[in-house]
């Protein structure tokens, strides 16, 4: 079994509204799995089903090969998008309470909390009430509470919202470290740059259906258009430009480089080799820039959503 979590054609209706339609995903062990989709696509419903907050109408979810059962809440750490803490409760008491709800003993929870509080340098918050903390500070507590019971599966829904860039980086590093220590992460966000940075796998849900699924690199390969950014320098650039336009499909380009004599995006036919293009270009002018255009996660997202 290489997949920690498998959802098998899960459907869920709320009255007449269909929130999920036959959605299947498989989250490989030790991966960071990006669950993407526009607002209202059904991501949260799927996450809630994985957390056994809502029950699916059809389909089944398996964790580590077993159908989901109540005991599995101990193996899952969930940071919901709509999150908060008891405002008038003290930080320490609150963390202990939430940890005990996840099945930790009080002493165990205390020891682990001490480790995390020292690590994030927040030890002196123990006796403060949540309402005395700033939003970012409360988010840190929330993060600690989510990961404290060392779950096999971590689910983060917009984990970086409310953090300044420094703390966002701190949390990002913690997530990567947890992954390296063996945890599997499901990561739901609208911030495509963090998808780019963190995710190995992604699944895209749109209008209750899964429309895209796989390794991020594979998907990028699928979406690449065999287009290359080209930057050239030549004394007679108009002639060179005309010759290139004769032979290839040319698109305007906007990349940055030092020499801006000729800047082009050249789209090759499906089976054309970039080597042929390169040797043609070197024979005509001096090549300063030659890069394959790789679609960004954001491009893929927008393109997929628009086409569906």
């Amino acid at each position, binding site marked *: 079994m290489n997949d920690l979590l498998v959802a098998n054609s899960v459907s869920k209706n*709320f*009255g007449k509204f269909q929130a999920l339609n036959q959605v299947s995903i498989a989250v490989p062990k030790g991966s960071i799995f990006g669950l993407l989709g526009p607002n209202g696509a059904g991501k949260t419903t799927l996450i*809630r089903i994985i*957390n*056994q*907050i*809502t029950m699916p109408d059809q389909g089944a979810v398996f964790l580590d090969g077993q159908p989901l059962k*109540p*005991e599995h*809440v*101990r193996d*899952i750490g*969930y*940071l*919901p998008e*709509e*999150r*908060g*803490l*008891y*405002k*008038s*409760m003290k930080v320490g008491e609150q963390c202990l*309470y*939430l940890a*005990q*709800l*996840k*099945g930790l003993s009080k002493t165990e929870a205390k020891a682990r909390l001490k480790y995390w509080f020292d690590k994030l340098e927040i030890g002196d918050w123990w006796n403060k009430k949540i309402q005395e903390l700033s939003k970012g500070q409360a988010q840190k507590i*929330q993060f600690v*509470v989510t990961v404290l019971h060392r779950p096999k599966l971590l689910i983060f829904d917009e984990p970086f919202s409310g953090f300044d860039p420094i703390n966002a980086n701190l949390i990002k590093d913690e997530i990567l470290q947890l992954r390296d220590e063996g945890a599997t992460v499901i990561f739901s966000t609208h911030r495509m740059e963090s998808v780019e940075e963190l995710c190995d796998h992604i699944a895209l849900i749109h209008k209750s259906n899964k429309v895209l699924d796989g390794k991020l690199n594979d998907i990028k390969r699928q979406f690449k258009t065999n287009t290359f950014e080209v930057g050239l320098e030549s004394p007679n650039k108009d002639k060179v430009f005309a010759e290139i336009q004769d032979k290839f499909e040319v698109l305007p380009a906007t990349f940055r480089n030092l020499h801006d004599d000729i800047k082009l995006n050249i789209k090759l036919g499906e089976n054309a080799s970039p080597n042929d293009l390169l040797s043609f270009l070197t024979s005509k002018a001096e090549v300063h820039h030659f890069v394959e255009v790789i679609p960004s996660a954001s491009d893929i997202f927008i393109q997929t959503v628009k086409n569906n």
Partner: protein
Amino acid sequence: MNHLPLIIKREYLTKVKNKSFIVMTFLSPLIMIALAAVVAYLSQLNNDKERTISILDETGYLKEVFQNSENTTYTDLTGLSLENAIALVKEKKDYGLLHIASVDVLGDATNKIKFYSEESPSLSVISGLEQKIEKRLKEEKLQKDGVTLAQIEASKTNIEIAQESYDGQKSSKADNVVKLIFGGAAGYLLFMFIIIYGNMIMRSVIEEKTSRIIEVIISSVKPIQLMMGKIIGTSLAGVTQFVIWSILGGVFMFVLGFIFNIDLLAMQTQQQEVAMQTLQDSGMEQRIGEFFIAFQNLPMTNLIIAFLFFFIGGYLLYSSLYAAIGAAVDNETDTQQFMLPILMPLMLAVYVGFFTVIEDPHGTVSTVFSFIPFTSPVVMLMRIPFGVPLWQQGLSLLLLIGTFVFAVWFAAKIYRVGILMYGKKPTYKELFKWLKY
């Protein structure tokens, strides 16, 4: 995984450690006692007001019934004309003038007796005067027919019907009073408890929604566990508060009694004089004895057991509905439309209890309402001191438990869906849909 004890503990401790809860617990008895003292003092002040009432009696024999008392002085103005008397009373700023016309009052007294005053006189003053005159006139009329005063005095009788059930248990009117006090207190206590702590549960559910912690919690525990933990924890806090109140109340009474010992004694002697008179009239000593017997006549074991069951059943039934309301809305102002259907049966129960049960504890209305689950806890608790057959209690309790289970199921459904719903206030139709999610 049973997290119920953990949740109960947290709910209880949060409630009990809450500052306003602590302040309320220790301040409310003080406020209550202070209020009672102020009211007592004010009414005392009112009674102590001295007034002078002038009498202009043209019959000549009625004025002697007006004997000066502690607060009221009567002046006899007989001999003056009505106009002069009114002018004089006005000038003296007396409370008022009672004019009794000379014409044959014995025949038809209508319009023959009038009270003149600046402002409209107090009801108690007027009825006091009326009683005095009525008594005197009645005696006068009887004497005219040849009955002597001694005969009148001797004709006074006091009837007290002794009651005994077929199986020989003696009871009296005092029994009914004691039963009413017990039943009323039990029913009213439940009513107050539901209102106060039901609201507290509702607020605590709303708080979890507004602080957005709810989704974090229910990814660890089942919503129904959270709901039950909340209900039980809050109830325990409520019981704690009630116990502290009773203890504080007792202590305050004792301390106050000690401090104002002398005053109380003085008051007692006054009251005793009055009491002695009534005692002689109606045999108060015997009455006190009756109250003790009435106490012993109460079906105590039945009362206590039934109280426990109906109290817990009724409270849980209502508080689960309060929890459901809390889950359905986002803030307290939105609760109004859902509160009415809860408060209506509760108020109905209290009214039915206080009006029909007093009238006829085993009548159709009381009996029916003591079976309807939403009113049965209050009404049945009021009926039980009067002796309710065990099968009726059992059936009513069974219905209550059945409804309670259904209500919890219903509330849990609403709760489960509602706690994750933000934004607009749901309608009843939507709530009904949630049941099917």
